[in-house]
């Protein structure tokens, strides 16, 4: 193995001197505020920019959800506290402080869009990926720093366009985050056009990021950082970047076509004979609504793995670090991630069993869907087995990582009935689906993201976040998250549909003689419980927000490697300077050398020179 290590030009000494020079140079020209925080090309600053902005968007998306939950639990009743504010800002759609069905629809569409495209993906992929990946592979920065900056600015613009759409006449997009045509074209608002333009900007941002990540991981690995020495986090980001690179463009194509439908009045997705409001629409027709769904879900399903893979990467790092032993089945994890990435491109139509696309196609897609659950289960199993026999350090990041495992497990397993056409026909578009994917993304991915924030915060600031309030944040979030989502499984199985703006009141009232009640009272009652659990969940985030900002200046100061981790991101000065490493790191071993027999400490950094590290003959100790 040792012979295979690439010999690179000996620029280590020269590089260090150069870095020194550069630093001295920099001290002369201290970059101003704009240069340093807004137009920065440093991957760490860009990572933090992404992180803060996506956290803000997640909070905003959460507020939209609270307003919707109020409307579901108390349809037509003015929203307390925020009602007058809503009416002042949005006018007629929020008359008397109550949420009209149109407003409910646009909140629903924008909650999904914001959470997925402006919250979770930028935080999981762009923020953590940007900050941590170059550090982990021993690179001075991303391969294309200026593209990186352009990527963030494009993301920012996309976010602005999405937010602005709330204030235009007619309001924001109302056709769901999936924007199915012809609905998306026939709703009389330009919100949809704003949504599409915003999406094109966000897609551009993702593409620039994906190209940058892949090029960085392929080209800028430090000497000795072979593929199988990369931490699993880097592998997860690598596969994610490929998914974004190849799955997003078809949605961009679909977005352009729908934009043409909305602005140039073409009929790409509008069928012949389409009637709007009882009148034949003035269109040429001949389009295919199914085409939009195919193009949308060609991104939409891989996007699920964009949400989950970086989270798995974060959890894997934290588990290895806090069990103080190597990750169980590193190679299985890597190959499973690659297989998931590949297979995620051929499962998309399992979202479309109800469209009448045909039995044979449904059979094909439910087969691939069942197959893709295998590598996902392998990944989760490896993580569970990693816990076996470890002396587990329980701290806030580890708590969130441990919380991720069963929550993602519930989310994944409840997806199986949705992947099979026969059971999906019944469960499609019910709250069961909402519960399923929220278990994957909210207590799943978002818990992993919280874990990542607590874990890498000391690297970014040199201080730890408060442990006590971290635990309060975890236990409250864990409890209320489950009270919010668990009842939705029951509601869905009882037949509550996902897009009803009155929370099912009218549907429940429609009683057919001699038939089972459409929605029994107990199911409707759950709406009230979920509302209060959601509000409590919101309150549970306050300790986190305060902790995050308070700890920047008041947290417990720590050294460069407070978790005693092995990966290269912890072998840099804290916070890492421009250029990251004092010396170019030479990687000599795998990423998870914890508790190596014969080593003085229970962790052996990847770049620690061989002589003082592992024992001469490790077999002796087994």
């Amino acid at each position, binding site marked *: 193995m040792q012979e295979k290590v690439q010999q690179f030009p000996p620029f280590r000494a020269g590089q260090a001197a150069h870095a020194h020079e550069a630093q001295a140079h920099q001290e002369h020209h201290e970059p101003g505020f704009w240069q340093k925080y807004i137009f920065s090309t440093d991957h760490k600053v860009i990572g933090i920019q992404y992180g803060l902005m996506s956290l803000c968007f997640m909070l905003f998306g959460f507020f939209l959800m609270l307003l919707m939950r109020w409307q579901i639990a108390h349809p037509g009743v003015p929203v307390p506290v925020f009602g007058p504010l809503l009416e002042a800002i949005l006018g007629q759609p929020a008359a008397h402080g109550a949420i009209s069905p149109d407003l409910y629809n646009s909140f629903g569409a924008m909650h999904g869009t914001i959470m997925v495209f402006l919250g979770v993906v930028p935080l999981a992929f762009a923020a953590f990926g940007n900050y941590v990946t170059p550090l982990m592979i021993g690179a001075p920065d991303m391969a294309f720093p200026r593209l990186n900056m352009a990527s963030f600015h494009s993301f920012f613009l996309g976010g602005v366009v999405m937010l602005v759409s709330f204030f235009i006449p007619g309001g924001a997009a109302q056709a769901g985050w999936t924007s199915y045509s012809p609905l998306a074209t026939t709703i009389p608002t330009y919100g949809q056009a704003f949504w599409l333009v915003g999406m094109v900007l966000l897609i551009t941002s993702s593409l620039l990021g994906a190209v940058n990540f892949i090029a960085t991981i392929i080209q800028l690995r430090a000497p000795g950082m072979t593929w199988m020495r990369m931490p699993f986090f880097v592998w997860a980001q690598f596969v994610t970047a490929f998914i974004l690179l190849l799955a997003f463009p078809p949605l961009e194509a679909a977005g352009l076509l729908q934009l043409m439908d909305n602005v140039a009045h073409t009929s790409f997705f509008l069928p012949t004979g389409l009637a709007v409001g009882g009148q034949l629409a003035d269109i040429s027709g001949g389009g295919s609504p199914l*085409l939009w769904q195919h193009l949308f879900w060609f991104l939409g399903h891989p996007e699920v793995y964009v949400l989950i893979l970086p989270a798995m990467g974060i959890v894997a790092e934290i588990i290895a670090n806090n069990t103080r032993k190597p990750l169980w089945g590193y190679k299985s994890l890597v190959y499973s991630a690659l297989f998931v990435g590949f297979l995620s491109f051929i499962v998309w139509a399992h979202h479309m069993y109800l469209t009448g696309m045909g039995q044979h196609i449904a059979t094909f897609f439910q087969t691939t869907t069942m197959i893709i659950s295998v590598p996902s289960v392998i990944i989760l199993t490896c993580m569970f087995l990693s816990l076996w026999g470890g002396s587990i350090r329980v701290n806030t990041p580890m708590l969130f990582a441990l919380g991720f495992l069963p929550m993602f497990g519930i989310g994944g397993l409840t997806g199986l009935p949705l992947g099979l056409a026969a059971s999906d026909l019944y469960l499609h578009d019910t709250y069961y689906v909402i519960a399923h994917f929220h278990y994957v993304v909210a207590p799943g991915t978002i818990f992993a993201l919280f874990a990542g924030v607590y874990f890498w915060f000391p690297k970014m600031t040199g201080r730890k976040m408060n442990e006590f309030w971290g635990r309060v944040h975890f236990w409250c979030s864990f409890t209320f998250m489950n009270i919010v989502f668990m009842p939705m499984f029951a509601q869905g199985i009882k037949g509550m549909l996902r897009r009803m703006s009155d929370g099912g009141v009218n549907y429940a009232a429609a009683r057919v003689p001699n038939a089972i009640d459409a929605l029994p009272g107990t199911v409707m009652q759950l709406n009230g419980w979920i509302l209060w659990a959601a509000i409590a969940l919101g309150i549970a985030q306050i300790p986190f927000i305060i902790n995050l900002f308070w700890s920047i200046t008041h947290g417990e100061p720590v050294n460069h490697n407070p978790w005693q981790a092995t990966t290269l991101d912890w072998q840099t000065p804290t916070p890492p300077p421009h250029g990251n490493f004092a010396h170019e790191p030479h990687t000599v071993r795998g990423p998870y050398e914890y508790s190596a027999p014969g080593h003085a400490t229970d962790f052996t950094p990847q770049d620690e020179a061989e002589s003082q590290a592992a024992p001469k003959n490790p077999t002796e100790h087994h």
Partner: protein
Amino acid sequence: MEIPYTVQNRPDTGIYNAKLGIWLFLASEVMLFGGLFSAYVLLRVGADQGMWPHGWLNVTLGTVNTLLLALSAITTLLAWAACKVRDFGKFKLFHGCTILLALTFLGIKSYEYHDKLAHYEIALTNGKFADGHFVEQSKDFDLLKKTGTFTLHGHIVEDRRELMDLRSPEAQAAKHEEITIAAADIKKMGNYGPRHNTFTAIYFTLTGLHALHILGGTLVIFYFWGPGSRMWKTDPERFTNRIEVSGLFWHFVDLVWIFLFPVLYLT
């Protein structure tokens, strides 16, 4: 701080950063145009019997444009080769040709667009259809409505389907002449713009996006040909890489046209 392998190849991957970057970008472009081409296939397969147009586009102009782009691919390659052998004069000459060829392509394309936008189909109150190009310079519909008459250079058909296949012998034999139509006889009229039918929609979208790519590529090549060529004096190797990378993009854009031409013009 300096990022490694911006100019030199990394020994174990055998490639420099920007070249890998552009190949990845082109992979995403393949998926973008792949999505649009599959939309084309689905729309065409799903079209009603006899309602998918044939022969609506000018094959001669399309062929000329194909040749222009093929030629520009050659000049792009030669420009890069000239950089490789450090002949700056030849580089200027060849990439100058590339820019001229690209601009000619865009000129022809705009002429074709204009031709489609000036082409009207008019549903008459008697159930027939008039089809042809406006003779008047002004195409202000509201104004013409008041003046009372329109003059078209074209013909009148019984059934819309007759307008679909312009390669058929009947369509070839049809006599085009100046016809004048009274505003009162018009039920509905519209030009051959994107909203005319799904063929013009996908035609304008695909070729429009392609033309944007041509425009972008031309701007980049123009920058390297003009102000950006100062780098030749300071770092010729890096400059050569830039020409190679922009050339790869240009070849891709040419390749897209090689698919667009038969799909839209010849079938």
